């Protein structure tokens, strides 16, 4: 018997729990040649801002053991070019597309949510709250529960679409962040974004990245991500999307046991553009081999 892989998250019906993570799957088109998009649950587009953003100088990427650091600086085409040049592709795709976005101010967040809400091809919104709040002098929305509450409240008022809030792991108390977002009306939480790190070139006595620090992703972050998913799942009554170092079906299933309803595959797509599809297929195979009829029965089923 074929196991049931479908899940429902924030009102989105997914054929399976495997999504691709923002910033690692372009706007979808880039991968169409390598992945049958109809085999994955959903995909998330590169983080959008109101105006196009240049991003940081290079080098922007460096490999570290078991992971990579990136300091892309949120380069993106901006919402206008997104609507004009990227949305038409989404029309042909039979898989929910989720738009990831960020602003410099609460008003910008709300404005973006409003504009994305009006695009029928967008199935859901993922708010990235891990970027600097310029107005408030460098405080990060994603590390202060009060600020997070305000941002999510503003976005909630601006959209009726499923609203997912993506949390930063660079906090001392992830649970209080998650609660603030839940109180503000988020439909789901996705975690984690990248962990701040750095790499040093010893001979040149310089940081490797032009930006000095960058965000760590890949297998190296998986234990941190699993722990955070587990903590939040026990404390907050919202569906969770687990992200961080997922390379294969086993990794994905571990996140589901820890309490995630769905997962996102990030860095793995760089190494194998077909990773998300293979992970979905691998999950189905694992469930069949282990006599699990419905993946939903594994959500939060960790015996701890």
């Amino acid at each position, binding site marked *: 018997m074929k196991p049931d892989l479908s899940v429902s998250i924030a009102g989105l019906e997914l054929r399976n729990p495997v999504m691709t993570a923002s*910033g*690692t*799957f*372009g706007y979808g088109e*880039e*991968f169409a040649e390598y992945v049958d998009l109809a085999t994955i649950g959903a995909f998330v587009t*590169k983080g959008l801002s109101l105006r*196009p*953003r*240049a*991003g940081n100088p*290079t*080098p*922007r*990427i*460096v*490999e570290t*053991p*078991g*992971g*990579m650091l*990136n300091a*892309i600086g949120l*380069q993106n085409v901006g919402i206008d070019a997104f609507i004009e040049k990227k949305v038409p592709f989404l029309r042909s795709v039979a898989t929910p597309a989720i738009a990831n976005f960020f602003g410099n101010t609460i008003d910008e967040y709300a404005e973006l949510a409003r504009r994305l809400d009006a695009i029928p091809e967008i199935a859901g919104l993922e708010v990235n709250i891990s970027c600097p709040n310029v107005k408030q002098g460098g405080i990060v929305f994603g590390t202060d529960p009060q600020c997070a509450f305000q941002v999510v409240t503003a976005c909630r008022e601006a959209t009726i679409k499923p609203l997912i809030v993506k949390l930063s792991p660079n906090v001392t108390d992830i649970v209080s962040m998650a609660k603030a977002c839940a109180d503000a009306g988020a439909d789901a939480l996705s975690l984690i974004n990248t962990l701040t790190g750095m790499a040093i070139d010893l001979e040149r006595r310089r940081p490797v990245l032009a930006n000095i620090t960058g965000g760590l992703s*890949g*297998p190296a972050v998986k234990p941190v991500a699993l722990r955070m998913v587990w903590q939040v799942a026990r404390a907050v009554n919202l569906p969770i999307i687990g992200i961080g170092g997922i*390379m294969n079906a086993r990794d994905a299933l571990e996140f589901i046991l820890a309490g995630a309803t769905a997962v996102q595959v990030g*860095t793995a*797509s*760089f*190494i*194998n*553009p077909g990773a998300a599809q293979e992970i979905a297929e691998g999950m189905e195979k694992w469930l069949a081999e282990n006599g699990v009829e419905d993946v939903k029965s594994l959500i939060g089923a960790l015996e701890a």
Partner: protein
Amino acid sequence: MRMTAPSEFPAAQPGQFVMVRVNDAIDPLLRRPFGIFDVGVHTPAQTGAASQPYLEMLYRVVGKGTGMLSALHDTDLLDVLGPLGKGFQLGAPGEEKIIVGGGVGLAPLYLLAKELVKQSPVRLFVGGRTRDDVLCITEFERLGVECYVATEDGSLGECGLVTEALIRRLAACDGTPRIFACGPHGMLNAVAGIAAQRNIPCQVSLEGYMACGMGACLGCVTPGHHHSNETPDYRCVCADGPVFDAAELKWEA
């Protein structure tokens, strides 16, 4: 190194590249980019044996990944993604073609030379710090390419920068030649400057630090000609390149 390859490889354009996964483990995690040195179809001498497409890469051992590549055995399998990126535009038949290269930058230029000699006279200018930086000249000579070598320490060819020999050639040649270059960024910068001054079409093949090789991560970008912070114009080396018209890019003065 030479390997047998899937059937789409012989159609690769000069200047395209591949992303190689050296190892199944997570260290090294990312694929490594390499230019396509040569592709073709090998027809075995025995009658009846199936002909076999092949791919060749030329690489220098600099670190972990290339070190592992050099330790591979004959029968090992390698996970190769490609051909990727945009290659060189060959230009009109008959006009003089000038290729400038340095170090492993010569790698993607061999397949280019192989195509160009079919339709034009081709001259190669190779530069390096020492003779160790000058690779595979004999392969180019065998194609019928006229080769000029210059090293900064004079250990091979002329002593000095290869760009000086290039300038002399440009002064001597009649008609407009077309320049193709791949090598260290400083060399490309100089070549782009020389070409711009003389209004000569010039394409360069760039390197970038790549994670995905297909335009998704935005790690490999390089500033385009009109780039500024107010009017961002970053181009992906992997998907918009690696070959660019030199005039499209921003160069240091």
